[in-house]
C-alpha cells in the first residue's frame, strides 16, 4: 500500500486552526439569516409553485414580509400565525399573498407558543418526507449494491432534461455510477429557483425540483435494470444554496456540490451571504444523507496547480470543519481535489500522486472527489485521452472514492455521447487492470512523493496559521484562495442578508440542530 509518513501533530494543528477559523465565522454570523434561508423555510412549510410572471411563491412570501419590514422575525412565525388564523395551508396562504389578498403583518397575532407549535408541525411533514427519502435510498442501496470503487462520475449537459435523461441512462449502462446534471450557466446568480422542467438551458439545465424528480425517476428505472444504484448529483451553490439543498433532499439526490467559499471566489457572491447559507444548506444535506462535494478543484483550474497545493489543502481543512459544524459526518464530506499540474513539468505524475495521497490520507474517512485534468487539455483529443488515462491510473493507485471521469473533448464542448462512452470505458479498464496494483507498492523513505507531500503539509500549516490569525474574511480579502480577492461588503446578494430580530424563529434549524447534534448535547 502506498502510505505517506505524515506528521500527525501537524495535521492535528491544521485541524485545530481550521476548526477555530470556522467557529469564528459561525459565531460572527450567528445573528444573521438570509432571504434564501427564509425561502427555504417557506418550502419546508410546503410552499411551492410560481405566481404570475413565474415568480416562485417562496420568493413572493419572503419579498412580501420584507416589504412589510418583518422579515427579521423569520417567515416561520408569520406563516404559522396566518395558517392558524385562516385555518388554511401555507400554500393557500402563499397564493393569497401573491394575489395581494393577505398581508402577513396584518394578521391578528395568535401567540408565540401556538405559532411555534404550528410551525414545528408544518415543517415536520417535510422533515419526515426527507427521512422517508433517506430510508428509500438505504433500501435501494441494499438491493442494488454498488461494489466497485472508485465510483465513476460523469456529467450530462445538454440543456434539455429529456435529452439528459437519455444520455444519463446510456452512461449508466456503460458503467457510470454517478450522474451529475450540469446546471445552466449563470443560475448561481439568480436569487430564485426556476420552476418546472428545462428544455432549453445553456451549459446545462436549471436546477429545478422537477428536473431533479424526472432524472431521479429515470435513474431509478435504470438502476433497477442494471442491478446497481446509480447516484444523482446536482449543484447546491449560488444564491439559492439552502433552497436547492431542500429540493435535493426531497427528491433523493445523492450528492450535491456544496462548498463554503465557492460562491464567494468564483461567482462573486457576498461573503456573509454565502457563509450563512452554506451552514443551513449543509445541515439539510446532512439530514438527507447527501454527500457534499467541495470545490477546491476550481482553485487548480484558476491558478497554477503546481504551486496551489497548500491553498487547496488549507481550504479543504476549512471546508471540512464548516461541514462538521453543519452536522455532516466524515463519510458525507466529499472534498474536492484535481489532477491539474502542467503535463510539461518533469515528474508531474509523481507530484500528482503525492498530492492525491496526501489529501486521501489526511481525510481518511472522507470520500474525496477526484477531478480530472481540464486546463491543460487542448483540442488534441488524443493527448487529452492520454492525460485522462494517467489521471485514471493515479486515482486507482491512490484509492480515490469518487472519480470524475475526464473527457477527451474537455477543451471543446460538453461531452457528446461518444465522448462519454470512450472516457467511461477507459476509466473502467483502469479500475480492472490496476485493481490491486497499489497493494504491490510501498514508498521509499524520503522519496520525492514523500518530500513533496511533507512540504505541502508544512506550507499548509503556515498558511492556516495566517488565516487563523487574520480570520477568514480578511484572508479572502487578501486573495489567499485561488488568487481571488473579494471584499466582505462586496459581491452579489448582500442585500439578502439580515440581522435576526429578537423574535426570530426558524423551526427547521431548531429541529435540524436537535437531530444532527443529538449526541453532542
Amino acid at each position: 500500500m502506498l502510505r505517506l509518513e505524515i506528521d500527525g501533530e501537524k495535521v492535528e494543528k491544521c485541524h485545530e486552526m481550521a476548526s477555530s477559523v470556522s467557529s469564528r465565522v459561525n459565531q460572527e454570523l450567528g445573528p444573521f439569516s438570509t432571504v434564501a434561508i427564509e425561502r427555504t423555510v417557506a418550502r419546508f412549510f410546503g410552499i411551492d409553485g410560481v405566481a404570475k410572471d413565474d415568480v416562485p411563491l417562496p420568493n413572493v412570501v419572503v419579498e412580501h414580509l420584507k416589504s412589510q419590514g418583518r422579515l427579521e422575525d423569520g417567515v416561520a412565525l408569520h406563516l404559522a400565525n396566518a395558517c392558524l388564523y385562516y385555518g388554511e395551508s401555507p400554500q393557500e396562504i402563499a397564493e393569497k399573498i401573491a394575489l395581494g389578498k393577505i398581508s402577513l403583518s396584518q394578521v391578528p397575532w395568535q401567540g408565540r407558543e401556538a405559532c411555534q407549535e404550528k410551525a414545528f408541525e408544518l415543517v415536520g411533514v417535510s422533515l419526515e418526507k426527507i427521512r422517508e427519502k433517506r430510508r428509500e435510498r438505504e433500501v435501494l442501496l441494499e438491493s442494488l449494491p454498488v461494489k466497485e470503487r472508485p465510483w465513476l462520475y460523469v456529467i450530462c449537459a445538454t440543456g434539455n432534461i429529456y435529452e439528459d435523461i437519455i444520455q444519463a441512462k446510456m452512461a449508466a449502462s456503460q458503467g457510470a455510477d454517478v450522474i451529475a446534471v450540469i446546471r445552466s450557466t449563470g443560475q448561481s446568480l439568480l436569487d430564485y429557483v426556476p420552476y418546472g422542467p428545462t428544455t432549453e438551458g445553456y451549459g446545462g439545465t436549471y436546477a429545478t425540483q422537477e428536473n431533479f424528480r424526472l432524472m431521479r425517476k429515470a435513474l431509478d428505472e435504470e438502476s433497477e435494470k442494471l442491478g446497481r444504484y446509480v447516484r444523482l448529483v446536482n449543484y447546491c451553490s449560488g444564491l439559492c444554496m439552502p433552497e436547492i439543498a431542500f429540493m435535493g433532499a426531497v427528491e433523493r439526490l445523492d450528492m450535491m456540490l456544496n462548498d463554503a467559499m465557492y460562491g464567494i471566489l468564483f461567482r462573486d457572491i457576498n461573503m456573509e451571504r454565502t457563509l450563512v447559507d452554506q451552514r443551513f444548506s449543509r445541515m439539510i444535506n446532512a439530514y438527507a444523507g447527501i454527500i457534499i462535494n467541495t470545490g477546491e478543484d476550481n482553485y487548480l483550474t484558476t491558478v497554477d496547480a503546481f504551486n496551489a497545493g497548500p491553498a487547496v489543502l488549507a481550504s479543504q481543512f476549512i471546508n471540512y470543519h464548516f461541514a462538521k459544524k453543519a452536522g455532516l459526518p466524515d463519510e458525507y464530506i466529499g472534498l474536492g481535489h484535481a489532477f491539474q499540474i502542467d503535463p510539461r513539468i518533469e515528474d508531474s505524475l509523481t507530484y500528482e500522486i503525492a498530492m492525491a495521497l496526501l489529501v486521501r490520507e489526511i481525510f481518511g474517512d472522507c470520500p474525496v472527489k477526484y477531478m480530472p485534468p481540464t486546463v491543460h487539455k487542448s483540442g488534441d483529443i488524443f493527448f487529452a485521452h492520454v492525460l485522462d488515462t494517467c489521471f485514471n491510473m493515479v486515482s486507482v493507485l491512490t484509492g480515490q472514492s469518487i472519480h470524475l471521469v475526464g473527457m477527451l473533448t474537455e477543451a471543446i464542448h460538453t461531452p457528446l455521447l461518444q465522448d462519454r462512452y470512450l472516457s467511461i470505458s477507459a476509466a473502467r479498464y483502469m479500475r480492472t487492470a490496476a485493481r490491486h496494483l497499489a497493494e504491490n507498492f510501498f514508498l521509499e523513505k524520503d522519496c520525492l512523493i514523500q518530500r513533496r507531500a511533507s512540504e505541502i503539509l508544512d506550507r499548509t500549516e503556515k498558511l492556516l496559521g495566517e488565516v487563523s490569525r487574520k480570520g477568514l474574511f480578511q484572508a479572502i480579502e487578501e486573495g489567499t484562495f485561488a488568487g481571488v480577492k473579494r471584499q466582505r461588503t462586496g459581491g452579489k446578494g448582500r442585500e439578502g442578508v439580515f440581522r435576526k430580530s429578537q423574535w426570530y424563529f426558524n423551526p427547521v434549524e431548531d429541529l435540524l440542530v436537535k437531530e444532527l447534534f443529538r449526541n453532542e448535547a
Partner: protein
Amino acid sequence: MMDDVVRENVEASVILPYGDHKNDGVVQVSFTLPVPDGPLGDEAARQVMRLMSLKEPQVVESTPLGENYTFFVGYGKLTRPVEISKLKVARPLWDKLDAASIDRLVRERLGRPIIVVGAATGQDAHTVGLDAILNYKGFSGDHGLEAYSAFRVVNMGSQIPNESLVAKAIELRADAILVSQVVTQRNVHLSNLTNLVELLEAEGWRDKVVLVAGGPRITHALAVELGYDAGFGPGTRPSDVASYLTQEVLRRKSLY
C-alpha cells in the same frame, strides 16, 4: 429477414449523426495536410471539412508535424441525412445453430463430415484469425470447427500459395475452402483472393466448393463481389461459420 427487423428498430427513416442532440449531425475528423501550421493551414483544414459537406467547420487543434505538415482535429455538422430504407445491406444467409444441432444435421442428412480446407494464402502469415475459426481452441470461448463431429478440417497454415490450396482441396474433394487474408496493403488481399477464384475456375472446381473468405478487412459484400460465396469480418465466431457452412453445403445438395 434479419435486416428488416433491424431496420424497424431504427426509429426514424432518415438519420443524422448524433453528437449531443438528436440530428445535430456532429462528426469528429482528423487528418494531416501538407501545409505549414498557421492561419492559412487552418483555413485549408476548414476547406477540407467543407468539401466533406460539414457545416460550421471548427478546427479545434492544429499541430505542426514537421516543416510544412500540419495535423488537424476538427468538428463539423453533417446536414445530409442517411435514408435507412435505401441502404443495401449484404450478409450471408444463415440462422445460428448450436453445435449439437449442427453435428446432428450433418450426420443425419449428409452422413459424413463436411470437408473443409483452410489457409492463409499468398504472403500472408497471419494465422491467429484462421486458427480461431478452424482449430479446436476457437475464439472467445467458442470452439473452432475441429471441435465439431460435423467437420473434417485441414488447416494448411500460413503463406500457402493459391495453387497448393486448390490442389489440396481437389485432392481431399473438399466441400468448402476457407481463406484468410489479413494483410491488405496496396490491396494485396484483393489480388490474392481474385487469383484463387480464377485458379478454381480454371480447374473447373469453383462450383464444387463453398468458397469463403475472412479477415479484418473482409465484408460479405466485398467477398461476393470478388466471386466468393460468403465473407466474414472481424469478431466472427467459429459457430457463425459452422452454422453457415452446414446450411450452405446441405442446401446445395438440397438437404436443407
